[in-house]
Structure formats: structure tokens, C-alpha cells
């Protein structure tokens, strides 16, 4: 199964963390009102929006597959990361990364968690180390780029160490979020890659829900031939709308498109035969997500770490102090 040893961890991620953090010594870090409970970067184009309203009921009905679970054992692995901005420096941004791999064997859920790792990213860094070009205007875009970058590195790391498993990512299988090489690597080791997009409730009011709601058993609805060309051009997966538990929660589910459609469906059936679903969402991914998330407390701990270990001075906008940090406003 998954070999969790840290030796396998993408070394450049760890080294880069140490290096970039070291360079921070004595700097000033400006933190802002960014510490909400779960800061989603909410980037445009992060998850391609599916405009479900345009689909017609008749078209949808034809494409629904009712699926039954296949119970032959397979390991289910969930992968998620979280990236959070800690603050701005004179010429860059400090952010924290944490990634988690969760897997379910026949008995229990297990995890290996990496991080928090800290990065100080300047424009220079981004170019030389990550090969990323920073967008001068929008710091959020830059963060988004970093997030995709580390996410991809992390995915690759996980897949390098896996065999014969079903691997679940958070999000979708678009070129922006997954590298083609990663998918190739996965197949080579007989892994099946799927992605769940969390924003399920967006779909609640539209036609597809009605169609799927009529079904009692788990079912998936294949949307690929209904998608626009531009959408398809960046999409590396079979795109399904999936209802995988009795509750009427729908998720967008992508399955590696290099698999034949029936093989993709087969994979979904094995997934439901081997995984628990809570409100239609797989448990491994839920756990991976909640273990990765960097909470407010953790962000404060990281700030304290920076102050104590690296002598970094934290600057807070005066008026934000009390509001954000309560008792910690005095630091």
C-alpha cells in the first residue's frame, strides 16, 4: 500500500520551505484580515463552472447509469491539500502548506500528513524555483498559482508511491489542476484517478437533480458529450454528476478519461463497494480535507513560530487587531 515514509516526500518542497523561510530572518510580516475559518482562494477558473441550467431533461435521462457496488477489495486513497496565506513581506508572500493522504484498508482509515510547510515566495523565487510567473496585480492569483503548483507536486508524490488503488482528488481533472504525466504515472501502477468537486449544492436546484432524485440507488450521469468544446479542451476526465448515497447530494465526479467509459463506470462501482459515503461524499476525502485545513489557531501558531524562531516582526493593521485575534491582539 501507500508508503508513507518521508524520504519519498518531494524533496524540493521541503528544501524550498527551509530555504525560503531562512531568508525571512528579521523581516517584517504584515498580516491582514485574511483569517477567516476556511479561506478559499476562490479563483476564477479554478473549477470550471458547469452551466447546468442549459441541459434539457430528455437529454439527461438517456445518460443516467444506475450503478451497483462492486465489492472486490481495492484500497481507496484520498488526497487533499490546503494552502493559506500567512502574510505579506516587503517583496513577497508567506504561505503555509499542508497535504494529507488518507487511505482505507479493510479495517480502518489511516493518514500521513505533511506540513505545515512554510514558503516565502517572491517573484524571483516563483520564477526560478517554481517556474511560475507572478501576476503583479492580483496577489490572490499568485497564491492560486502556487496552490496548483504544490498540489500537483503533491499528487505526483502520492501516485509515485501507490499501486492498484482508487485515488480521489479534491476538485476536478482539468489541466490546471492535474498534470497529464501524473495520470499516466497512475495508470502505469494500475491506479484509477477520480476527482470530487465539493461545490455540490450549486446543482441542487437544477434539472439534473430531479432526474437523479427519481432514482433510489446510486447513479451517475455522464455529461461529456453535452459539454462545450472549450470546456472539453482543458478537461482530462469523464465528467459525471454523481449521486452516490441515498441522500440527494450531487457532486461533480471526474474520472480519468484515458479509461474507457465502461471502465470508468466500473471504477465508480468499485469505489462505492469499498468506501463510505456521507451525504454523497467519500469519507477518505472528507478526512483528508479536514486534516489538511489550516485553522485560525494554526495560523496564529505559525505566526508565533515566525516571531519566536526567526525574529520576524508581525505588523497588524491597528483596527484589525482586536477583531481578529481577540486575546492575541497584543502580540
Amino acid at each position, binding site marked *: 500500500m501507500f508508503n508513507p515514509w518521508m524520504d519519498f516526500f518531494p524533496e524540493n518542497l521541503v528544501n524550498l520551505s527551509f530555504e525560503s523561510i531562512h531568508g525571512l530572518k528579521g523581516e517584517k510580516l504584515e498580516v491582514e484580515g485574511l483569517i477567516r475559518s476556511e479561506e478559499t482562494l476562490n479563483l476564477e477558473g479554478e473549477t470550471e463552472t458547469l452551466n447546468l441550467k442549459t441541459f434539457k431533461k430528455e437529454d439527461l435521462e438517456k445518460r443516467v447509469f444506475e450503478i451497483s457496488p462492486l465489492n472486490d477489495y481495492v484500497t481507496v486513497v484520498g488526497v487533499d491539500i490546503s494552502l493559506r496565506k500567512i502574510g505579506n513581506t516587503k517583496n513577497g508572500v508567506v504561505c503555509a502548506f499542508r497535504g494529507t493522504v488518507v487511505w482505507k484498508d479493510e479495517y480502518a482509515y489511516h*493518514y500521513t500528513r505533511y506540513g505545515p510547510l512554510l514558503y516565502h515566495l517572491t517573484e524571483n523565487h516563483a520564477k526560478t524555483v517554481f517556474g511560475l510567473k507572478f501576476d503583479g496585480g492580483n496577489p490572490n492569483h499568485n497564491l492560486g498559482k502556487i496552490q496548483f503548483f504544490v498540489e500537483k507536486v503533491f499528487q505526483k508524490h502520492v501516485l509515485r508511491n501507490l499501486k492498484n488503488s482508487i485515488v480521489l482528488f479534491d476538485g476536478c481533472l482539468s489541466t490546471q489542476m492535474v498534470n497529464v504525466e501524473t495520470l499516466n504515472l497512475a495508470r502505469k501502477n494500475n491506479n484509477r484517478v477520480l476527482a470530487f468537486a465539493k461545490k455540490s449544492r450549486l446543482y441542487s436546484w437544477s434539472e439534473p437533480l430531479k432526474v437523479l432524485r427519481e432514482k433510489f440507488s446510486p447513479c451517475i450521469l455522464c455529461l461529456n458529450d453535452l459539454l462545450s468544446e472549450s470546456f472539453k479542451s482543458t478537461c482530462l476526465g469523464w465528467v459525471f454528476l454523481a449521486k452516490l448515497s441515498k441522500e440527494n447530494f450531487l457532486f461533480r465526479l471526474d474520472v480519468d478519461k484515458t479509461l474507457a467509459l465502461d471502465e470508468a463506470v466500473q471504477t465508480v462501482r468499485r469505489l462505492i463497494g469499498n468506501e463510505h459515503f456521507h451525504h454523497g461524499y467519500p469519507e477518505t476525502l472528507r478526512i483528508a480535507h479536514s486534516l489538511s485545513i489550516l485553522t485560525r489557531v494554526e495560523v496564529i501558531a*505559525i505566526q508565533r513560530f515566525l516571531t519566536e524562531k526567526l525574529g520576524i516582526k508581525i505588523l497588524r493593521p491597528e483596527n484589525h487587531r482586536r477583531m481578529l485575534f481577540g486575546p492575541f491582539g497584543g502580540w
Partner: protein
Amino acid sequence: MKLFKKEDETIQILCFPDEDVRKGDYLMVEDFRSGRSLLVQVIDIRFANFPGLMEDLLRDELTEKIVFGDDFDPLGLETQITLLRDVRILLGKIRCSIEDGKLNMNISWLPSRTHSRVYKVDALRLVELLKLGKKRPLKIGEMNGGLELAIDVDGLDGGLTIITGRKGTGKSHLSKLLILGLVEYGAPCVVFDVNGEYVNLGLDKNGEKNKYYERIVVLEPTKNFKITLNYAGKHILANILTYTLGLPQTSLREFFRVWDETIQTNHLTIKKIVERVKVSNLHEHIKEALLSRLYTLERSGFFTDEEFKLVRVEDVLGRVSGGGVIVLNLSRLPNLERKIVVEFMLGKLVELLKRWFVKAIFLFAEEAHLYLRETYWEDIVTRMRHLGLFTFFITNQPDSIHEDIYRQVDTFFLFNFKNENDLNTITKVSKVDSESMKSITYSLEPYHCLAVGQATKEIPLIIKVKELPVKTMGETRKFFS
């Protein structure tokens, strides 16, 4: 540590879990701009509750039961995170202010948040600051951190002391320690010993005579301690008859008429008075009333008609006037007799103090509600105190002590209490705010007490009372063990 909040005399301080602070410890809030400091006592320790913590704990709760795993944490941030979750808020009360190394009570100023430093004051520093135990030191135990603490015996002089706490927490033990300390400095002490647990103060642990042996006189009423009517005197006898035996005033007048007649013709004895009453022309009711009281006195065994058996209190007191203890063992006496003996003893001590036979007496009264008449409570804190009778009340039933006593108390030794009712009772002591008192008392360990009074410069201190070098015999009686 960081100053977080101040409201009146309450201060809140943010404290990381790696700093070892306990309830009762002292902190210094030093404002280095103004050069002043506040001395703050920690009265409670709570988790800091800050935004986002709930979210964190919930995550743990949701995952930790079903998931097992490893963390690869090269920066070691996990320890920081754990630390932060255990950040505590220390709730403290300002006890005094310090300026130029001197204590004062001006605590109304506000230290700066950014320009102040908060740190723990270790026991040694505190003792030096308060200048404790400089004049007549009495080693009573140790402070948190193991420093031996001596209080000034002078602090117990001239006042009223209460020692209270739950059963078996070490009250009598402390009281013995104080007695021996007072004895060392030449003070005469009297103990009303309801459990007979002070009788061995003159023996060491192995039962051998110790250095106090000669200074301890154990009086066993009805055995080695008997008195005559004459020695008791009219006044004391009147009190015994009235308060202990409930004799009405009219009958009392008749009693003393008979008394006067008897004394003119005869040697004054209970028997003689009885004879006279019998043959007198008193009203039958009065006759009966007098006779029944006289029989009670006779039966008590405390009175003797034989002059040579009389033990004079002044003789005994003379033996301890240079430092010693009279232990009045009340443990074998029935209720009524106990009250008679105490009535007599208190009356006699007051008489002797009035005559300046001794300068002062330290009276240790265990469970005084068992034998002290109602009207004496007030007397003890007012009249008797002025005469030089300095009382220590020792009890595990704080509500048995009158409220006035709490208000007037000079020194207070408080052991553990758990019961809400008891906790409320002790807050009547005005020396310390009730919040401190309740919070600290509730979590005091056995043999630890909260002491406050002149002896501690009015600064409440938690003290672990030291062992006694003498045979204690104060254990609560048990069947098993």
C-alpha cells in the same frame, strides 16, 4: 506572559503552558516606563478561549477516533500548535503595588500592555519583599517551590485567629505548630481540647519526653483538676448557674442568700448549701430548682469540698507563664460538664488577666460551638481581647462560628473546603475577596492552607504546613485501619 485585561483589582494574564504557574502563586506586573509594579496573586487558571479554537477541537474530535496516522512535520510546527491550544488565562487579584521597593495599597493605576513585563515571583523574592519572619520567626511550612516559610509570631499577638477547613485537612496540626511556636517565645497558651489530641505535645514521636515536656500541663477536670465553690467565687458560679444550668434570676438571688448565710457559719461546701436549702423556708419551686442544680454540680465531679484537692488556675498558669501550655482535656466530659468547666475556666482566666496575673493568654478553642455559650462569642472578640485573651478558633464547621467573628478576624488559616455552603460562609472574612477565597480554597491540597493576616503582611499565601516533631494523636477515629 502578557497582560491582557484589568478590571478593578482583577487582572487577566495570557500564559503559555510551558510556564509553570499554580493557583496562589504571585506574579509581578512591572511597568518599566513608570517604574511601578503590581503584585498579583493567581486565583484561577483557565483555558484561553479564542476565535477558531472550537473549530480546531471539533476537527480533532471528528477525526481522532476513526483515523490513525503519522505526521511529517519538518518545521516542528505541531508543538507550537499544541502549545497554543493550551494557552491559559491566569486570573489574578492585585494585592498591592510596589514603588521603589516599598509596598503600598495604591492599586488604581493601569499598567501598560506594551510596556509591561509579567513574570512569576518566586517564593524567596516574595518573602524578602514582604519582609516575613524577620522579628520572631515561626517556621510553619513551605511555599510552592519548597522554600521554607517563617511567619512573625508578633502577627498573631493581640488578635483573633480562625483556623478552618474540611475534616482531616490538618487544622489541629497547624494549631499545635502555632502553640509550640508561641511557647518557644515564652507565651502562655491554653487549649480547650475536645478530642484529647493535645495531651501528648510533651512527647516526641516515639513517646519519649521532648523539650516541651516541662512546659505542658494537662488538666483533666474531675481527675487532676477540681475546684471548690469558694475558689470559683460568686460571679463565676452565678454564670454557671445561669447560663449552663438555666437557673432563673429569682432563684439565683435566693441561692446567694443561702450562700451568704452558709459562709458566715460554715466552711462553704455544696453539701452544706444543700442542707441549708432543704431547711430554709423558700418556696417549694425555688427549693427544687436550687437543689436540682446543686446535685448537678455535685455529680459533675468537678467540685470538691476538700481544700487540699483544689487546683488553682493561677498555680498552673504560673508554671506556664514563661512559655507553656495548659491543655484542658474536655474529651471525657459529658456535654453539660464540659460547659461548666469551660465557663469556669474562661471566668477564671479573665479574672486573672484583670488582676494582671499574666500579661496575656493565647486561647486555642477547638470546636467552640460545643461548649461556648452564645453570649461569649461577642465577648471574646471585644472585652476579653482587650483584657489580653487572644483566641484561636479551630473548626471544621465554619458556620458554627458567628458572623461577627469572621468580620473581626485578624488572622485566617484556611484549609480545603469543597462544600458550597462552607465556601460561602468563609467569604464573610473581609480580608480577602470572596472570589479568591472560594477559588483557592476549593483546590487546596491536604496540609496546605491559605494564610492571611498581620503574620503574612496581609498578603494571602498558600503554605504547605510542615510536619510536627511531636506525638500528634489527632487522627480522626476510625474502625478500619
